[in-house]
């Protein structure tokens, strides 16, 4: 399970191993690691997995499924629906929810012959950066059990980093794929908004939510994304992935936002940022600092918009159609209010209250509308930056993986750490987190690259984005 997904897929196609052996190896690794990791909310029953692996193997042998990932075991964040498989979104609210259909992104992988192993742990409704807000307990960082793997796709990141699966799907609203990838020493790719269908993804903030990939390396991430990116009529926000344009033969132009110098950044992270920039210069790239406008507005704009959309999206949980239902309710209002109070965790309720507040008539202009306007200005700031640069380079987070419990007393303090990841989310741009090294205490650190378009990214730039 330690080889890349592509290597494993190749060995399966060449008959050196098979899909059933790969699934068994994944299950062995899960039995060995899971007790001290907690990456999964639900591992599928062994017979279900082995049957799926046998089917995949048959399709490979009959040359019906010959995708690069046929037979390869993978996991899915528990906010993506899988038919007949409990899908909890990390919440008590959906403890007993069993979807009647499968998310489009997952269907694409199953059609390609990849073998689903289970559903991974996550912050409740993807609201959090540590996977600690999950109703099902915290996931631990594979590099240090006292630390968080990051979040909200912390289970997916930990499962890939620990070799329990070859790759995993996550979702990214303000950094939830990139940040756990950085904390777990793997690659996390957030595609451009709308390039992967959101059909079957349980909504958090619909104008920001994107299905992303957690993988061992960039080539694996590319292979998965190639399967995911297609036009799905069920998602009306779907678009073709943009293609980054760059003149042939010209050196790569890399911009590092200047305001970063003043940011509260861990010294070791700063040193790795400088080292990464220097390595690019040595490879012949033109690296320069520039002013990225409005960076101080990123976090407030993000949390205003994301909570507003969350409060609206989560209105649907009323104890009637699906989800937790309070017992002995006296009236319909009592039923709704108590079902939500009992079913949602504290972070989710905080964000619903905040989102409702900024959307209320008296405060709409001061908060929500202002945030929308600034978001449009932020998008223009990125467009301007990417007209001068091929890539924007920043850290993923100001510091390495936090100790579990760090943000228990002041959850709002956790939001500030999203500084680098929420900008590309607000602008709808693709961004990737790539491991660049470790701190002296052995914790992985990733750097984020923001790019113009996912489609051209791999042909053009990614081949050079290899850090040892």
């Amino acid at each position: 399970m330690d080889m890349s997904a592509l290597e494993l897929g190749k060995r399966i196609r060449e008959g050196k191993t098979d899909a059933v052996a790969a699934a068994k190896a994944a299950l062995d690794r899960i039995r060995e690691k899971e007790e001290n990791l907690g990456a999964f909310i639900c591992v599928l029953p062994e017979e279900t997995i082995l049957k799926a692996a046998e089917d995949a193997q048959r399709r490979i042998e009959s040359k019906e499924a010959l995708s690069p990932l046929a037979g390869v075991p993978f996991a899915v964040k528990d906010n993506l629906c899988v038919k007949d498989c409990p899908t909890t979104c990390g919440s008590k609210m959906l403890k007993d929810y069993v979807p009647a259909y499968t998310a489009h992104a997952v269907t694409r992988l199953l059609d390609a012959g990849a073998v689903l192993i289970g559903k991974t742990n996550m912050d409740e409704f993807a609201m959090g950066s540590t996977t600690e807000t999950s109703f099902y307990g915290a996931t631990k960082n594979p590099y240090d059990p006292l630390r968080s793997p990051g979040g909200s796709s912390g289970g997916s990141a930990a499962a890939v980093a620990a070799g329990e699966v070859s790759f995993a799907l996550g979702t990214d609203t303000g950094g939830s794929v990139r940040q756990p990838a950085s904390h777990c020493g793997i690659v996390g790719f957030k595609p451009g908004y709308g390039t992967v269908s959101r059909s079957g993804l349980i909504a958090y903030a619909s104008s920001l939510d994107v299905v992303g990939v957690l993988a061992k390396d960039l080539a694996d991430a590319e292979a998965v994304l190639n399967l995911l990116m297609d036009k799905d009529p069920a998602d009306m926000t779907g678009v073709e992935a943009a293609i980054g344009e760059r003149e042939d033969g010209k050196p790569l132009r890399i911009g590092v936002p200047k305001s970063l110098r003043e940011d509260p950044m861990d010294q070791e992270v700063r040193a790795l940022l400088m080292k990464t920039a220097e390595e690019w210069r040595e490879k012949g790239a033109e690296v320069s600092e520039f002013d990225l406008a409005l960076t101080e507005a990123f976090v407030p704009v993000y949390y205003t918009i994301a909570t507003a959309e969350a409060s609206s999206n989560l209105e649907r949980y009323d104890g009637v159609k699906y989800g937790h239902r309070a017992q002995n309710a006296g009236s319909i209002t009592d039923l709704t209010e108590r079902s939500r109070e009992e079913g949602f965790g504290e972070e989710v309720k905080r964000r619903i209250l905040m989102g409702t507040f900024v959307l209320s008539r008296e405060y709409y202009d001061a908060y929500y509308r202002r945030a929308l306007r600034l978001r449009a200005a932020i998008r223009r700031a990125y467009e301007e930056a990417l007209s001068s640069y091929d890539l924007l380079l920043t850290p993923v987070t100001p510091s390495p993986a936090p100790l579990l419990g760090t943000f228990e007393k002041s959850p709002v303090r956790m939001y500030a750490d999203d500084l680098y990841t929420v900008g590309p989310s607000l602008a709808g741009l693709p961004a990737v987190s790539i491991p660049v090294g470790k701190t002296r205490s052995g914790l992985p650190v990733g750097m984020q690259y923001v790019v113009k378009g996912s489609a051209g990214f791999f042909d053009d730039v990614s081949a050079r984005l290899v850090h040892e």
Partner: protein
Amino acid sequence: MKITDEMLERVAALSGLALPAEKKDKAKKDLEEMLALSDRLSAFDTAEAAEETGPVLALGDLREDIVQNPDGKEALLKNAPDGREEGLTVPKWIS
């Protein structure tokens, strides 16, 4: 911004949340902290910021207004915490 008891009760009602008495002080403090973050928005001049406040992307082609989903009533009702025969139940609504 200072959140009063009255403001909290109003936003909780709008949010469809019944906050137990012992959680109200913490909820007020948290909401104040979150609003302090959003209050930073007032430092930016939005006069020059775009007028456009639409979604990130223009919507793609909208599909025809024709029902395309198969009839999944039975499957959907399975998830209802109190689904009966062909319907969902709620507490008595009209007296």
